[in-house]
């Protein structure tokens, strides 16, 4: 099998225009006879469902939550990038393109990324037209802030709830189409298999999570907008229900899975507090606009802080190590996530961590509070203000910018971050890997598409902050609605697709057999027992740092977990009715297989790039050392029937517009 990314010819800035001008169209009368299933209702899914329905296709939209508005895009905090250059700081489509390619450590596809940068500005226009209440300045115009890995301010935001506002915007567009009858909404439904007829995706098997029934849904195309697989680690910033099942079942049916080892560990999350923890909470990257990251310069101070004999506020400036500002003066606290995470781990591994587990660093707002306080005093024409008044004014500004994040922190940690610096540590947040797609976002199964975090295409080995929202909406609003027509133009004569065929029978039986197996195995251990065990192995061996020995060990251990899981897992209840443990069991079964593939992929990639840090491959000062000669490719894995023996198929990455060089933020 060879991979054809179907990248249009022509210069990089003309490819998308040229594609749109020549792509085949489906006329409105024919669209009414074409069914499209959209799985997942996050930013990518909701925007795709709304757009396709507006165009006239008959859409079915599925989500496992009780409402499309709950999809985990809702939790994105900091912002969305767009090359608007409203700040007049030299931004452009090319710079967003360049920053994204460089940020991804030269492991993403040029043509896709350029298209993303091109449509980014439209996203903001679209969202404002929908009534998304972005932050504005006193002149009534949109405000921007900075995110990591860039030297411009191109991030639009709505306080710390940007994802919520964008998702509710897409949800409102979708609701309008549901109201019109153009979208059939199937909430509390989970896709459990993809049905393939004559080599084409023709439908899905879904479980109605309320009744427990397995349902058959046919369509002329299926779009998987099902998010990332960060929950393979058990502890992550993903929602509890986020899972890889839809994508993985498509993978088992022939869709290649690309770069599974490219996972993003986000530097600023609330540290783990104990074994009881069920998930981790992110503190937005936007906080690094104003927060300074540090640990004590001397180990004795770190020990005193850990023993609670010393308060961080009492440690004088000269005894603090602002290690990001020290190591990366050009970008300082706003280096990309992979670099900030590794640097935190390095300090903590060396013994400078500041909480009882030794795995935390400070994110300190005291300087920003004073700076804002002084500015505010000037704006208000106040003279002879006391330090206390300046602090009060400054805290108000910080509260307006990040209030909900500070409140979340205080709820969880029981400490006031306006008074003492936040403690943070890296945690799993996003997955750059995903289903392999071509330029049209089609997987290797004709008629099966993947959008948003579920695909692999735009972020290479490391995603820049505020780019996930951009990509999700770009794929759903502006890319898929064009590219899907090119395929569906051949389907106008197909007619509605029957579900009483052997292919649907086989897929439904396949799902039924797996689910029923969970009740008849006589097992004794809850699903979470296996999920936690798997997560710990992957975090330890395929997390922020990886090496050959560890990965080989992990692969052996995961195989053991897989065997033990099917024999000894206990799922109470039955197939009938609401059964959350059954849902979890089916998801964890897929995470176990994916976990092994992640380790195999990480073992195959004998280089360090972005979030994939192989300890054997680093520069003398501890930076990631790429091997462009041998690994400048997308590793796309084909399922062979045995999860331990996938086939590797390579897509070479060709850079014609950007000079590939060592990635430096110094």
């Amino acid at each position, binding site marked *: 099998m060879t991979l054809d990314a179907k990248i249009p010819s022509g210069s990089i800035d003309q490819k998308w225009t040229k594609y749109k001008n020549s792509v085949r169209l489906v006329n409105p009368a024919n669209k009414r006879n074409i069914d499209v299933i959209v799985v997942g209702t996050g930013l990518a899914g909701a925007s795709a469902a709304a757009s396709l329905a507006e165009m006239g296709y008959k859409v079915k939209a599925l989500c496992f939550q009780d409402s499309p508005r709950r999809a985990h895009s809702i939790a994105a905090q900091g912002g969305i990038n767009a090359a608007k250059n409203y700040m007049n700081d030299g931004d452009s489509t090319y710079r967003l393109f360049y920053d994204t390619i460089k940020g991804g450590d030269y492991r993403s596809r040029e043509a896709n990324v350029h298209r993303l940068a091109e449509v980014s500005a439209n996203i903001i226009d679209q969202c404002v037209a929908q009534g998304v209440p972005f932050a504005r300045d006193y002149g009534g115009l949109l405000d921007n802030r900075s995110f990591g890995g860039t030297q411009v301010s191109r991030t639009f935001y709505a306080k710390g709830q940007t994802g919520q506002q964008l998702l509710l915007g897409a949800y409102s567009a979708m609701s309008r189409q549901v109201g019109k009858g153009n979208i059939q909404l199937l909430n509390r439904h989970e896709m459990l298999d993809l049905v393939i007829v004559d080599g084409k995706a023709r439908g899905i098997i879904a479980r109605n999570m309320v009744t427990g029934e397995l349902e058959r849904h046919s369509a002329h195309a299926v779009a998987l907008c099902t998010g990332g697989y960060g929950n393979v680690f058990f502890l992550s910033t993903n929602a*509890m229900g986020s899972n890889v099942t839809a994508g993985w079942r498509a993978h088992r049916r022939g869709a290649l899975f690309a770069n599974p080892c490219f996972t993003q560990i986000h530097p600023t999350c609330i540290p783990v507090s104990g074994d009881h923890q069920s998930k981790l909470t992110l503190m937005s990257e936007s906080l690094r606009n104003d927060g300074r990251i540090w640990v004590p310069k001397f180990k004795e101070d770190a020990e005193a802080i850990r023993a609670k004999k010393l308060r961080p506020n009492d440690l004088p400036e000269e005894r603090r190590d602002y290690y990001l500002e020290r190591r990366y003066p050009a970008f300082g606290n706003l280096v990309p996530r992979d670099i900030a995470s590794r640097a935190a781990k390095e300090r903590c591994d060396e013994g400078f961590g500041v909480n009882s587990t030794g795995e935390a660093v400070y994110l300190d707002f005291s300087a920003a509070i004073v700076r804002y306080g002084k500015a505010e005093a000037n704006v208000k024409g106040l003279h002879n203000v006391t330090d206390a008044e300046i602090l009060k004014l400054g805290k108000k500004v910080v509260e307006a910018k990040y209030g909900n994040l500070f409140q979340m922190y205080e709820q969880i940690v029981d400490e006031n971050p306006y008074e003492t610096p936040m403690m943070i540590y890296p945690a799993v947040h996003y997955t750059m890997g995903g289903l392999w797609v071509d330029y049209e976002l089609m997987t290797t199964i004709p008629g099966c598409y993947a959008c948003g975090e579920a695909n692999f295409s735009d972020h290479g080995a490391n995603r820049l902050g505020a780019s996930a929202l951009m990509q999700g909406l770009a794929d759903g609003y502006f890319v898929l609605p064009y590219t899907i027509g090119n395929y569906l133009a051949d389907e106008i004569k197909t007619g509605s697709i029957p579900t009483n065929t052997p292919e649907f029978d086989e897929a439904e039986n396949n799902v039924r057999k797996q689910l029923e197996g969970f009740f008849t195995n006589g097992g004794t251990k809850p699903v979470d027992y296996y999920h936690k065990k798997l997560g710990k192995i992957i975090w330890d061996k395929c997390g922020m740092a990886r090496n050959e020995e560890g990965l080989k060990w992990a692969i052996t251990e995961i195989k053991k977990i897989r065997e033990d899981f099917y024999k000894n897992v206990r799922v109470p209840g039955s197939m009938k009715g609401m059964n959350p443990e059954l849902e979890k069991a089916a998801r964890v079964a897929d995470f176990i297989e994916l976990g092994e593939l992640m380790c195999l992929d990480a073992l195959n990639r004998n280089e360090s790039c972005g979030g994939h840090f192989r300890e054997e491959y680093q520069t003398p000062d501890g930076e990631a050392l790429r091997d462009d000669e041998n690994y400048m490719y997308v590793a796309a894995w084909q399922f062979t029937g045995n999860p331990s023996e996938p086939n590797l198929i390579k897509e070479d990455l060709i850079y014609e517009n950007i000079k590939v060089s060592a990635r430096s933020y110094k």
Partner: protein
Amino acid sequence: MNLTLKVWRQKSTSEQGKLVEYKVSEISEDMSFLEMMDVLNYKLIESGDDPVAFDHDCREGICGMCSMFINGEAHGPNRGVTTCQLHMRSFKDGDTIYIEPWRSAAFPVIKDLMVDRSAFDRVQQAGGFISVNTSGRTLDANAIPVPKEDADKSFDAATCIGCGACVATCPNGSAMLFVSAKVSQYALLPQGQVERKERVLNMVKKMDEEGFGNCSNIGACEVQCPKNISLDNIARMNREYLMASIKPEN
């Protein structure tokens, strides 16, 4: 700490439910309320019992899925937080905690603590949007300046997470706080003006059809709203509704 839980158990919508007592021990005060429920469920599964079904997803207070009535209060004793953000440090060793589902005619129980809130989706479908297709060919985002105060108020209304605590806590089962937050978000923005009247009329009509009760100015919804959505929104919606009803032709 050790706790006694009285949890509402109900097998399905049509069956009778009842409070069942459970004991949990060694609960850390750093646990979230839902993590305490995880501990209970883990034990129930190990001993071959049916775990307690409850809705939850993001566990960081934004998705709006978690929905427990704890000791007679929506999302428990703290203010401005969802159930998933409630931590066990808010309770004491030896406490007895009553845990019930949202109770409202418009939110039928699916199982145990899970309820069906799809009525909210249907209200949204009746008019909670601005009719603009996703062409990308709209005005430049900065073409219409929006006064910061309006934008901020619109945002505050838009932070509603649709959890339904307002309905659950209202003696009348009214959804006025939820619906008014959506109406306000759009009424405050220039983009929302064209459909302003139709929107409020359609959403209120749907709200009534779905079986939500009327507002009688008690204000419990605002008190127990995890996102501090203001009662001002209800006043605004009443005004919008009145204006739309008096002069429907304009």
